[in-house]
């Protein structure tokens, strides 16, 4: 029996403590934002927040989550009332197929919670674990910059690296 909080609601889950969070979210709780991409922690599609940090839920066993707080993208807002980062992604139309985007949003959320004034380099480095195959990267970065501004921060240096 493992007790954890998901989007503010306490859950008591029994079953295999090894089962990665991703399958619980998608198949047991009907939370579909986190996606299966690789099951190997290589692509970031399944990223959620655990205690405010970006974590790949496909390699996070339930047993690792006892007493911890999980936030999925569903917990950040709804289509009618999107969260700050979600709104920034909508404003930038930062999606093509959209499959990777919930993971991107979770990762951006974790970054901006830790530091609402990241540098361009630290933003890219924070987003690096997440893959996008459609090539939506430029819009995703724009959305993160926009979200940082909306949170009262911003990207501290220009987008062009020093020569």
């Amino acid at each position, binding site marked *: 029996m493992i007790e954890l909080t998901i989007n503010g609601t306490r859950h008591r889950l029994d079953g*295999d403590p090894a*089962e*990665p969070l991703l*399958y619980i979210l*998608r*198949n047991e709780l009907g*939370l*579909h*934002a986190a*996606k*299966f*991409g*690789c*099951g*190997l922690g*290589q*692509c970031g*599609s399944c990223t959620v927040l655990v205690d405010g940090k970006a974590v790949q839920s496909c390699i996070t066993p339930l047993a690792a989550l006892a007493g911890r707080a999980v936030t*999925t*993208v*569903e917990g*950040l*807002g*709804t*289509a009618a009332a*999107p969260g700050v980062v*979600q709104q920034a*992604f*909508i404003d930038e*139309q930062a*999606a*093509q*197929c*959209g*499959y*990777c*985007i*919930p993971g991107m*949003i979770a990762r951006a959320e974790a970054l901006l919670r830790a530091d609402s004034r990241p540098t*361009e380099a630290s933003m*890219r*480095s924070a*987003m*690096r674990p*997440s*893959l*996008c*195959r*459609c*090539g*939506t*990267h*430029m*819009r*995703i*970065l724009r959305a993160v910059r926009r979200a940082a501004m909306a949170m009262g921060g911003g990207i501290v240096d220009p*987008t*062009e*690296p020093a*020569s």
Partner: protein
Amino acid sequence: MSGIARRDLLRGGGLVVLFALAGSSVGQEGGTTGGGEGAGAPPEVAPGLPGSLAEFPHLDAWIRIAPDGAATVFTGKAELGQGIGTALLQIAADELDLSLECVSLVTADTGRTPNEGITSGSQSLQNSGTAIAHAAANVRYLLAERAAWRFGVAVETLSTANGVVLASDGRRATYGELAASLSLHVEARPQVVRKRIGVRHHIGRDRPRRDIPPKLTGAAAYAHDMTMPGMLHARVIRGPADGTLLTAPDFDAIARLPGVERLVRTGDFAAMLGPREWPLVQAMLTVGRMPWKRSGAPLPGGDLRDAIRALPAEPDVILERNAAAPVAVRHITARYDRPYLMHGAIGPSCAVALWQDGMMTVWTHSQGVYPLRAALAELLDLPLERVRCIHREGAGCYGHNGADDVAADAALAARAVPGRAVKLMWTREQEHGWEPLGPAMVAELSAGLDADGQIAEWTHAVWSNTHSTRPSRAGDLLAGLEVGRGFAPSPPRAIPQPNGGGDRNAIPLYTLPRVTITSLFVPQMPVRVSALRGLGAHMNVFAIESMIDELAAAAGSDPVAFRLRHLSDPRAIAVIRTLADRFGWARQPSERWRGQGLGFARYKNSGAYCAVAIDLRIEPETGATTVLRAEAAVDAGETVSPNGLRNQIEGGIVQSLSWTAHEEVRFDAARRTAFDWSSYPMIRFDAVPYRMAVHVIDRPSLPFLGAGEASQGPAAAAFANAVTRAIGQRLRSMPLSAERIRRAIAAD
């Protein structure tokens, strides 16, 4: 009322639109249903009608109006993340004169929508968009005619506004009530014209994509997210990669594993089913321990590009011209090539299938639900009408990936459990191991400059396997080859010009007096391949635009000026000029290890015009490139959604940078060795450009031109040309990786 007065009225009234019929047909935008890929598209029955109306001329195939006035639009094309869902609604809402909220869209479904073949070749707006625009204009006209009859007035005196037909005396009728009294099962009339440009509200404007907010907040938007009561999860059991076979699989051991409720076997096809997904994930480790062998033909050793170049080929001269021109005094000959590339969907292929009451329903992210249905019907030995394929979005596919194969896997699994839906998803390793790859290609070019530095002669020979093995028969599906019923794959075929496969975009748009372009189709496939976004265009544009830069350098000419000197198409010239101007081509920084490059093409020589310029810097010690800036100019004819168009062009540039600089499928003696993102890496955030801008040249009076594959070729060439400028050497073999660049610098 004079024309001028009408225009004033329109400007003032905003929503008021008047009717008129054209004197003659406007069907100059002829329809073909795909990029030349696949089979099974229906014949043209109304060749005078534009877009896919030529195949499906009846209005109710495209648009239905409910009693409450809401319109449902049907398209045989699928939303693949390219944003057509919203773009087609913009078109329909505009032509119907309805608010966007009152229009909904049904996409590719063999039970409901027209058969528009495959969603490929950047054809959706050209074919479906054109059809829907004209169908909607027809419907609006029909509704007005009905109102005119009811009001006893001439149709020309009526106008429409937001779902209502208005008479000049103030009488009105809603679309809902009018539609209830007439049939839309009538053929479109070619002489019904679309609304004038000035009175369109949605086309050409940015409308937020309707699918984005749900996708960003956790809605079940993808086939992967579907759940149904009593649904079983499933995994397919096969060897580790294309061309392999498990030698003696211990199915009893698998069947005994906890959570495996059912093992389905037909011939060599096997799948395991269970109520929960996680036990199946773990059971795959047992499968991974099973011995396998290579069952396909032995792989040729060495670099498979050389094997493709050496295999028997069927030459087809697709262009030969021998115009008078000065003699060439300087020649350049070069070979360009690219490795096998992967589609690499971020989500592995997935399908949900339900076998119930003698009917097989498959929810699939295939790009061609109709051809898939035919293949599945043969595989399942069912009549066509007993199989229904409904498109559900998947992760972006960029061509023919595992989507169709997994649909067959799911259908076979579901057949064993009547009444229960089965969701079968490939593993990441299966996706990397089994998806049909984008073909490796070789292009050999030679060109000659005359004494004035003009191109006098040009030859281009391109070797390639087919670029489409999209399924239309059971033998085209992986499972079809496993079930042991003697199904064989369709023989590989070359996609003919003007679309072309390996020779797509092999014909340059430049003015070339003496030219021979030869497509060398290689029927024998060492590796299973199929359509990857852009087909041969990525390779051919890379080659052509590299060669153009090589010639410009030999002629001592600026690459932009050199291109403009060899172009006559004003739209091509405008695209390059716009880009050069906005990019600041004339004011390039001159800095060591920094370079700028440009690439241009008109996709398929019939789609969108696109030019890309790249400014990059190279770290000479490591060869690592930093793309400081990438800009593009694009002319896609009438632009429906400028933001959506920019999104496609931006994405194409980044994807092409990944293909061109980072990707290569490798093989050992037995199989491809790519099984995940560590063995087949792609571009990550640290390597994408620092700045990007896309400049849209809107041509509101001209037909839609597909743009989904317009930027890949130009971006590849722009990158290569920029690298050449930066390091003073030409790299002609993809990927232009950091290590290749470093070695070139070190060897210099």
